[in-house]
């Protein structure tokens, strides 16, 4: 059975040669190259966001520090948050998805290749526009969730927040078009035999995530549009002195913001589902439960947003409802954790760096999840909200969950994308240094939060415990920086080695490994009909039986 073929018009003279000139990369509509562009762009912004983090931690290393002024500190922590979420994690995860989805479903392209290219470039431009704010009077400085009335012109008169609004509107359009493109691709371009029940779990997560993005980002767009109208045309949406409602901003932002965190984690769940199977050499335990619980999470994610607003004074009834729904949403995620452990049980486990990050995720994300569920108990939330306990929680789930997923994916799919295996020894140095630094920085912040340190403060008095915990936390940040440098060195060093012969080094079971490593411009010439959830194992078994 033939794979889905896109008819490309013949060129007498190629637009840009196969020798990877600048024009070729600027004009490409090939989903694999666009995926790589997303990953490279994410790497650039990761370096910038990381430098911002180091600046913050350096300022907080000792009490009464004046390394950064309060104004600079506010801009840097705001930009750190915006960068990491919107210009590192989302592009990296979406880029990986755009690279892998056609390969995993046996297609040769995405449904709308030019829209795919547009999505990348508008996201990238949104990031550039946001960073232009530094040169235009100051970056946004009201935090990544930018509450009213601080976001109003009266209180924030530099143009930073205008750039925040415009940059995020552009990035949001990019995410939405990618998501729609992915949904149409998955629903209409699967190779014959691949029913929805036989989809690789990474593809399932991408499909559900696509719907989530398309439903959640418009809420952010509405909020940003109203904010820009307030600031540029003196409208009154969030201006409390003239009849507006500051609370309305919180509602709209978190209506987007909570599904957003699931948007950040679902692709990672997909990555882990693939990694656990391959490195236990065992089919996933409880495929249906994982797929079904993902749909449940997506639906429930729109019913919990007020848990970011327990301290806003909405009253006991409202708080109780959202406390209950927030406790409920922990259940589908917990189901998945047990399914992944069940996948490992009885399998032949290979402790590659990719698998090490996946196992570390199980522990770190559970810690993050437990601190999160603690917040669903309203009295605890009222004590710990806006303290370093929240900072600890969010970094445990975002780094321990999403970022470790990216690292795991990097080590797993690097041979697919580049035809070379990343160095495992350097990878292990990277893993242990990063995990050590990560836990050092953020575990201590749970304690900092409990002893009362507020978040988003540019300095602190030499109160007991604050000094030591902050200093150690900063040390951990530098450890993570060193580890990241080792990773970048690993990537560049590996790219200089010659390509390997074996296109399927891990003995994987999904179709992307059937294509060459790296895949040719046209992914597949023909693929057999898919008969199970492990199509590549079926192909390899048939080949073995034929040759016997």
């Amino acid at each position: 059975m033939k794979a889905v073929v896109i008819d490309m018009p013949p060129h007498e003279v190629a637009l840009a040669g196969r020798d990877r000139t600048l024009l070729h990369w600027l004009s490409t509509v090939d989903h694999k190259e666009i995926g790589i562009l997303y990953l490279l762009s994410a790497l650039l912004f990761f370096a910038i966001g990381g430098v911002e983090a180091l600046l913050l931690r350096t300022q907080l290393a000792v009490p009464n520090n004046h390394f950064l002024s309060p104004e600079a500190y506010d801009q840097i922590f705001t930009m750190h948050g915006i960068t990491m979420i919107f210009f590192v994690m989302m592009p990296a995860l979406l880029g990986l998805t755009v690279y892998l989805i056609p390969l995993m479903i046996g297609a040769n392209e995405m449904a709308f290749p030019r829209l795919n290219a547009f999505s990348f470039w508008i996201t990238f431009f949104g990031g550039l526009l946001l960073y232009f704010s530094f040169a235009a009077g100051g970056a946004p400085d009201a935090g990544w969730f930018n509450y009213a009335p601080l976001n109003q012109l009266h209180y924030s008169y530099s143009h930073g927040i205008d750039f925040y609004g415009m940059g995020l509107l552009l990035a949001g359009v990019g995410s939405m078009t990618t998501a729609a493109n992915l949904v149409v691709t998955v629903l209409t371009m699967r190779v014959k035999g691949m029913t929805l029940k036989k989809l690789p779990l990474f593809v399932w997560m991408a499909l559900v995530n696509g719907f989530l993005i398309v439903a959640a980002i418009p809420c952010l767009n509405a909020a940003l549009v109203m904010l820009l109208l307030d600031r540029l045309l003196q409208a009154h949406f969030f201006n409390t002195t003239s009849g507006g409602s500051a609370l309305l901003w919180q509602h709209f932002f978190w209506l987007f913001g909570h599904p957003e965190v699931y948007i950040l984690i679902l692709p990672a769940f997909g990555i882990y589902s693939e990694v656990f199977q391959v490195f236990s050499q065992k089919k996933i335990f409880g495929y249906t439960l994982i797929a079904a619980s993902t749909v449940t999470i997506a639906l429930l994610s729109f019913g919990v947003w007020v848990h970011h607003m327990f301290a806003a004074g909405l009253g006991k009834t409202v708080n109780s409802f959202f406390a209950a729904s927030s406790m409920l949403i922990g259940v589908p995620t917990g189901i998945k954790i047990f399914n992944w452990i069940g996948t490992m049980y009885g399998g032949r486990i290979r402790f590659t760096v990719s698998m090490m990050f996946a196992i570390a995720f199980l522990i770190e994300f559970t810690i993050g999840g437990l601190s999160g569920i603690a917040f669903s108990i309203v009295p605890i939330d009222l004590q710990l909200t806006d303290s370093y306990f929240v900072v600890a929680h969010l970094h445990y789930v975002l780094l321990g969950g999403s970022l470790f997923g990216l690292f795991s994916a990097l080590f797993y799919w690097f041979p697919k994308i580049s035809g070379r295996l990343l160095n495992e020894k350097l990878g292990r140095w990277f893993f242990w240094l990063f995990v050590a630094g990560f836990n050092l920085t953020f575990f201590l912040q749970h304690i900092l939060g409990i002893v009362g340190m507020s978040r988003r403060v540019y300095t602190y008095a030499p109160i007991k415990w604050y000094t030591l915990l902050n200093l150690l936390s900063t040390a951990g940040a530098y450890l993570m920086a060193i580890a990241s440098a080792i990773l970048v060195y690993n990537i560049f060093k590996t790219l200089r080695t010659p390509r390997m012969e074996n296109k399927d080094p891990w003995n994987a079971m999904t179709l992307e490994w059937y294509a060459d490593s790296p895949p040719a411009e046209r992914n597949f010439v023909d693929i057999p009909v898919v008969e199970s959830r492990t199509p590549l194992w079926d192909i390899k078994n048939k080949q073995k039986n034929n040759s016997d």
Partner: protein
Amino acid sequence: MQSKMMVKIVIGSEAMFFLCLIVAYLSFWKSGNFQPQIADHLHVKLTGLFTLCLIASSFTFWRAEHNQKQGEQKSSVRWLIATIALGIIFLFGQGREYFNLIKENVTVNRNVFGSAFYTLTGFHGLHVLIGIVVLVIILLISGKEYFGILPVAVFKSVGMYWHFVDAVWIIVFTTIYLLPYLI
């Protein structure tokens, strides 16, 4: 098939966007004292007439699509021109309403009513404008034999968008103009 699915997804996302704008409008109904301002400044009957024009444009587009499927290019083009004309008449009506309001000093920055009203109707008008641009494009393509017959799926997709814009207006019109009479 893919273009229809894509348009449905885009319509879904736009529906969420308009839902948020409508919720914002409604949240200020009491505190922003909307009712007297609507009674003083908005022309319900006239806008209702222009609403009928927009609804008629959905009907004319449906006829255009039907004729195109039967292969009757000339009739299809005529119904398409009628759709565009009715869309432009609707936008003219919106412009007239805006002009009168600004003369009476109801602007986007005057108070919460102004902000919410102009945002909700303005984004709707923008979507009508985009729809008209797309309709003109398919009119030009349909009119020239060089381009051949437009695929049915494309015509259907454009139709879905146009009907969506019409449906949103019915909801927005009810929310802004008719709500005082309903509650």
